[in-house]
């Protein structure tokens, strides 16, 4: 093997990892990618909502009330996905002290809280006509509410510290402890006898939902994932400017983006 051959895939990955950890590099990278996330989110949302609200037939039991599923379930999935992402970034931040990982963890917390909040609100609006109650302390609903409190705890702890990075580390630690709640939310409908219905869409094995309802649901799931990218890239850019305000690269951007006059 020639020791001076072109960089291996591993070398490139290491280089990419170090470049991404550099604030000005990530700022520019996020700026380039964000418009694509915006466009993809909007396009998939229009297709998914058209399919869900207009093309999909009414449910034989729930009539048109079931159409809340097209926002409720994607947001519920995202409430868990965003939490796992936040905890993963938090772990990288805690172990390797990567500034960008801390920022991504802390900036994904409000987005996850938003997904969780929308899940609870839309679930409540779905529960009233179907169960006759806005709220019930069943295992699925309660564990999802605990998830919201975990997000709020992470956000609150982060802002409780004078030093941003110290706050990020403390909040990342709390986020990691809260990971135990993720399987509880997911398996709550299996482990306990809940009023909330069981899993309809399954990754393995046949889903208990017809294709004309499934594809809009999956399209909305894709759209909400893309939204996380849209929102997170924008938030991370602002957080980097805030944290690196003393550095030349941030100052150059502030002066370049100055409004005329």
């Amino acid at each position, binding site marked *: 093997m020639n020791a001076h051959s072109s960089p291996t895939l591993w070398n490139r990955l290491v280089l990419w990892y170090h470049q991404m950890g550099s604030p000005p590099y990530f700022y520019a990278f996020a700026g380039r990618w964000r418009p694509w996330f915006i466009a993809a989110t909007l396009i998939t949302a229009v297709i998914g909502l058209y399919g869900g609200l207009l093309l999909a037939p009414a449910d034989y039991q729930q009539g*048109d009330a079931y159409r*809340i599923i097209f926002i409720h379930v994607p947001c519920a999935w995202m409430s868990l996905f965003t939490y796992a992402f936040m905890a993963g970034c938090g772990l990288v931040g805690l172990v390797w002290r990567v500034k960008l990982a801390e920022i991504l963890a802390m900036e994904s917390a409000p987005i996850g809280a938003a997904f969780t909040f929308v899940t609870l609100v839309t679930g409540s609006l779905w529960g009233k006509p179907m169960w006759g109650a806005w709220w019930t302390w069943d295992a699925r609903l309660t564990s999802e509410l605990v998830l919201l409190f975990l997000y709020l705890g992470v956000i609150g702890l982060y802002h409780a510290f004078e030093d941003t990075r110290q706050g990020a580390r403390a909040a990342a630690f709390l986020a990691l402890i809260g990971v135990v709640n993720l399987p509880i939310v997911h398996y709550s409908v299996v482990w306990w006898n809940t009023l909330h219905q069981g899993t309809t869409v399954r990754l393995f094995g046949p889903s208990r939902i017809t294709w004309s309802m499934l594809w809009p649901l999956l399209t909305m799931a894709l759209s909400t994932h893309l939204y996380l990218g849209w929102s997170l890239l924008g938030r991370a850019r602002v957080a980097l400017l805030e944290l690196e305000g003393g550095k030349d690269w*941030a*100052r150059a951007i*502030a002066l370049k983006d100055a409004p005329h006059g």
Partner: protein
Amino acid sequence: MDKFLAMGGYAVYVWPAYAAFFVVFAADLIATAARRRRVLKELRARIARQSARRSP
């Protein structure tokens, strides 16, 4: 169109759910845009203060 808006009698549940969905994420984006403007404004003020101190 009326039939679509009526949602089979469930309009009072379906449309507020969709409204909540859009309002929450719009608020998320607006909050970030406002924060970006504030951060850039503060940064420019800081630069102006420092350059004023250096060249009286």
